[in-house]
């Protein structure tokens, strides 16, 4: 939600750029399709903190505090329309996306959908992450730099609370 708000704030500021670059060709080759960039946004070391400040002012205390902890230095978002998709898009391969030195945290290919989450270690914490998602119609690439530990920890707490509720009611156990 915070990211959507950041995008909204930034869009309001008119800060449109091309977004993350260099991956488009590699994604086209792996996914066997043509990509048409529909939306691109890039906030750099000056504009990302300004957007964060606006967002903190607009958010409630809890989320404002979280955004402050992140110390965002860079946010890049690109949304591509998938054109002329091939019959069998390959599974996303981090080695072919120019992400050498990054660590794969999560890679999912399930019934046509794909998600790839990569991180890069730096100075003892999460400082950079890239998320790629593909649903057959759109590819979304998000690249974030900052002190992202707080974001993961907040997500971890939410995931654990959710898992606790599901386990408590005996629902949705994995088969």
């Amino acid at each position: 939600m915070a990211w959507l708000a950041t995008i909204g704030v930034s869009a309001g500021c008119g800060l449109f750029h091309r977004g993350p670059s260099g991956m488009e060709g590699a994604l086209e080759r792996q996914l066997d399709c043509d990509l048409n960039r529909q939306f691109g946004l890039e906030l750099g070391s000056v504009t990302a903190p300004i957007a964060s400040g606006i967002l903190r002012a607009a958010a409630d205390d809890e989320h404002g505090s979280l955004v402050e902890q992140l110390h965002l230095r860079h946010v890049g978002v690109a949304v591509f329309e998938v054109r002329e998709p091939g019959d069998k898009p390959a599974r996303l391969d981090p080695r072919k996306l120019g992400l050498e030195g990054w660590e794969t945290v999560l890679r999912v290919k399930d019934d046509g959908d794909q998600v790839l989450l990569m991180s890069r270690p730096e100075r003892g914490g999460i400082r950079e992450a890239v998320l790629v998602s593909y649903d057959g119609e759109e590819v979304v690439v998000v690249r974030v730099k900052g002190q992202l530990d707080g974001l993961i920890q907040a997500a971890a707490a939410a995931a654990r609370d959710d898992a606790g509720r599901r386990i408590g009611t005996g629902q949705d156990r994995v088969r």
Partner: protein
Amino acid sequence: MNKTLAAVALALALGPFPARAAEQDITRHPAYVDGSAILELAGEDGDIVEVSIGPGLMGAMRAGVDDATGLLSGLRGIYAYVVNLDHDAAREAGARRKVKSLEQQLSATGWERIVRVREEGDHVNVFTRPGGDGRPGSAQIVSGLVVLVLEGDESQVVFVNIIGDMDMAKLGALADTVNLPGLRDLSGDDE
């Protein structure tokens, strides 16, 4: 998308990242098991769930969640693969061979099988690696865990490798935390 959601929850629940370079080479840990042979079963375009949580991630996880049981304090990493075999007889046969080979490899290298289930086409194996270094009171500490599951109905194979010191008495809590096939057999949950 249950698998996907579970994987995302697992990845997020078992949080953040790398500290020092020396901590990164977890492949040298005696409880690290290379499960890439299982991943190969997916070919180039098969459905998978892959989760990799290295030492740095584990460290940040400990910082970010309330670990009242101390369950996370000794963990160094979690690696999991879920590969869909699409009810392809050849791939299922290949999976059986690779799982059997891994079972033999584990048994020959100091791992102990603590769970073995054969039920309606499902095969579940859980192995632990003794730990505790013989310290007094450390008999129930293990230094690693491997879960190997072949699910006939779902036509999928699951590999989970959890690395680090764990108290056997708390494995049930771990099963509830990571919520993966095979670990359920440790939780005492009859669902």
